[in-house]
């Protein structure tokens, strides 16, 4: 196994494979390839596989047939996995309304960056983001990296309720709240599109490894396209 890979137990019912500790598309891509190979291997007793920034966690039935062999199998797969996945994620375009009503924290981020609100919006729109993991609640994509000049830390006091669809940034990451939840990120806009809709043929808009671009829409277009108010 390569020297930069470690496998450690997460209790008796899961193993976590660790890759180098950084936000890096190459590391995350390797984690995705590892996860895909583990899935293909069809190890008995595997209940779930979770990819994060630099980890792959494999949940097992600890008393299941073959449970004792899982660690060795993971070590073998990790050793065989090449550093480059060579598979591109999907490209997803997300329309965002950046009106003050949709983005109540635009002023705070502009103050942090020492620029105008329009510059914050332009810098958020300028980059393509990678989905590193989907977690927290169903469909919440952790995307990075945002322009360092607007990479404000989390809000000092989290909101108890963040409206579903809010587009937010914090600590170099950007994301969209798929449901109304508490949240500590800065809200800079709102999308009419639901990142998670269990009724949709494909319930999840984002998958790890996807590339995301935001496009700007005005409030009228937001209202026309909104998938939120109807339910």
């Amino acid at each position, binding site marked *: 196994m390569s020297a930069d890979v470690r496998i*450690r*137990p*997460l*209790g*008796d*019912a*899961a193993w*976590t494979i660790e890759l180098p*500790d*950084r*936000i890096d598309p190459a590391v995350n891509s390797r984690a995705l390839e590892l*996860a895909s190979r583990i899935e293909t291997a069809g190890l008995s007793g595997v*209940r*779930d*596989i*979770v*990819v*994060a*920034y*630099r*980890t792959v*966690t494999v*949940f097992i039935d*600890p*008393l299941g047939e073959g449970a004792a062999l899982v660690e060795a199998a993971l070590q073998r797969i990790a050793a065989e996995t090449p550093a480059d996945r060579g598979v591109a994620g999907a490209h997803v375009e997300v329309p965002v309304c950046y009106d003050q009503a949709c983005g109540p924290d635009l002023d705070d981020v502009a103050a942090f960056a020492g620029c105008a609100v329009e510059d914050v919006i332009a810098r958020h729109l300028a980059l393509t983001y990678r989905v590193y*993991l*989907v*977690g*927290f*609640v*169903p*469909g*919440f994509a*952790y995307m990075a990296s945002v322009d360092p000049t607007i990479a404000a830390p989390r809000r000092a006091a989290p909101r108890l309720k963040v409206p579903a669809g809010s587009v937010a940034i914090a600590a170099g990451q950007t994301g969209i709240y*798929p*449901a109304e*939840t508490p949240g500590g990120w800065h809200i800079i806009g709102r999308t009419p599109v639901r990142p*998670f809709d*269990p009724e949709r043929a494909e319930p*999840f808009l984002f*998958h*790890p490894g996807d590339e995301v671009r935001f496009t700007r829409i005005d409030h009228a277009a937001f209202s026309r396209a909104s998938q939120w108010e109807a339910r």
Partner: protein
Amino acid sequence: MSALTVIRPGMLTTVQDLGRWGHQGLGVPVAGPMDWYSHRLANQIVGNEPGAAALEMTLIGPELEAEGSVICAVAGADVDVSVDARAVPLNAPFDVPSGARVRVGGRHHGARATLAVRGGIAVPALFGSRATHLVSRMGPFGGRPLAANDRLPVGDAVAGDARTGGKPLPLPYGGSRLRIMAGPQRERFTEDAWSTFTHSRYTVTPQSNRMGYRLEGARLTHVESADILSEATSIGTIQVPASGLPILLMADRQTTGGYTSIATVVTADLPIAGQLAPGDWVEFVACSREQAIAALREREAALTAKPH
């Protein structure tokens, strides 16, 4: 089809099965029972598959009215159960004639009881599971706790005859020791922190729920930062944020978390953890993987043990 109608919901009653597995990679939480042992025991007693949907009842149980006669069992917390005001035993099947009312109340020990009904609760499944996850509002009844007038259809999926058997879970009396395995970020804590963690007594605070228990007690010191790049959590993972006070993640945990974790409670002791209530004490005892697996085999054996 028979049904149970909620007359009074109790403090927090939810539909649970053994959890929504297979979609954590897209942020879908597992949920499922806080006490998997009693969930399985109650199902076994009424002749269901282990993973049939049942009711998890917290502290104060509900009152339910049967529509068509049904067979039920209650396991887990030591609570008073009656059918039309006549007491029925725990850990044994009992009949509820059509129109009769089951009442669960008067808790003596433990925090959560499971009520299983023969045939299972036949609410629609979402991503292959009937479990309720409260925060993301996933599962039957829009992922919320049961409310008055909710109607729970009773299914017809049975695995065998209703029968008494299996030992009840040994309930914590005011607190319990829980076995843990170190990690995954054990080395991000000082030696003193580890020693403190495994040699002191913590209290379950009122800021505790199905997501996790906030614990009060000795603070634990990190070597450097309390934060890590977010990664998967497990039920039983003990996170320690910058405050130094541990949080024990339970059934409704988020799929991923960004705090260092000092240890994880072993699967065998999760049911005990699920029976702790605010104010109860807890101590953590380190064990090896081999010991954890042996403990789990012992727990499984108790589930199938002959009636005593």
